[in-house]
């Protein structure tokens, strides 16, 4: 059985960590779905307000997405700018 070098060990665990970090995106997905669902309800009730509702919906979605993007940035850092590999 081949020996695992410390670098390989850290890289492998970082990849697993990146995968685990992306679990946080679930919340953003729920948030975006909730936002668009409510917007559909609003438009169904008041079709003439479609333009305004869509505008606010897109902004709300972008703000909701931010929490998911934090998880994404953590994953990207672990994959491509690994801070742990320089420690050994």
């Amino acid at each position, binding site marked *: 059985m081949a020996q695992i070098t410390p670098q390989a060990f850290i890289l492998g665990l970082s990849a697993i960590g990146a995968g685990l970090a992306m679990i946080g995106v679930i919340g953003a997905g729920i948030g975006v779905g909730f936002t668009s669902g409510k917007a559909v309800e609003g438009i169904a009730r008041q079709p003439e307000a479609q333009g305004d509702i869509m505008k606010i919906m897109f*902004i709300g979605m972008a703000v909701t997405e931010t929490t998911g*993007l934090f998880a994404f940035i953590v994953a990207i850092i672990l994959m491509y700018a690994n801070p742990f590999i320089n420690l050994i």
Partner: protein
Amino acid sequence: MELGTKKIIGIGNFYITETVIWSLIISVIMIVFALLATRKMQKVPKGLQAYAEWIVDFIYNWVGQVMGSDKLKFAPYIGTLFIFLLLGNLIGLFDIRPITTNLNTPFALATITFVMIHYNAVKTRRLGGYIKHLSEPNFLMLPINLLSELSFPLSLSFRLFGNILGGVVIMKLLYMALEKLSALLTGSIPIFIIAIPLPLNFFFDIFESVLQAYVFTMLTMAFIANAMKPKEE
């Protein structure tokens, strides 16, 4: 897979990346357009002047709607910010790295927004009113409000950066997978790249670019207007 921005020239830790070059090119394009459009101004607009007037009209209407008609002095900055972000994101269509995929660009712009928010808040509310505004329901909330104010430029810049970078990463992965797949079938001719990425290209390079530029500008406007003292009736 390489993700970082390409370094063009420089020594050690100080270097010029392609992001800087492309931001400068975009700035030059905007300045040249503005100069050309306003060179021979006429009463009845013609050619470039008509387009420029349409853009300016659009920006002023937008700022007047969101911030109120008494804050139209922000329109030049908001318009420049919007067009800069729009062009900077849309160059991804020409297979150039969008300038916002380097965190330095959105963070610099978010810092400008942050400074504008607090400068204008202090200027219109005076120092006492500003502190009162920060400790809104009661003074116990002051540290929490300070923290949320300080984290605002972070979330604003990460939103733009993460969205555009996510698109770039997904497009790169898709192109890699399609290249491998077509290499298995046809050898060296990348036949799958022809039309399959088109919907994703449309979403990430056009829709997301325009939407994120819009959202960044919109939040900048909303927060500046919110921090300033409301107009007396």
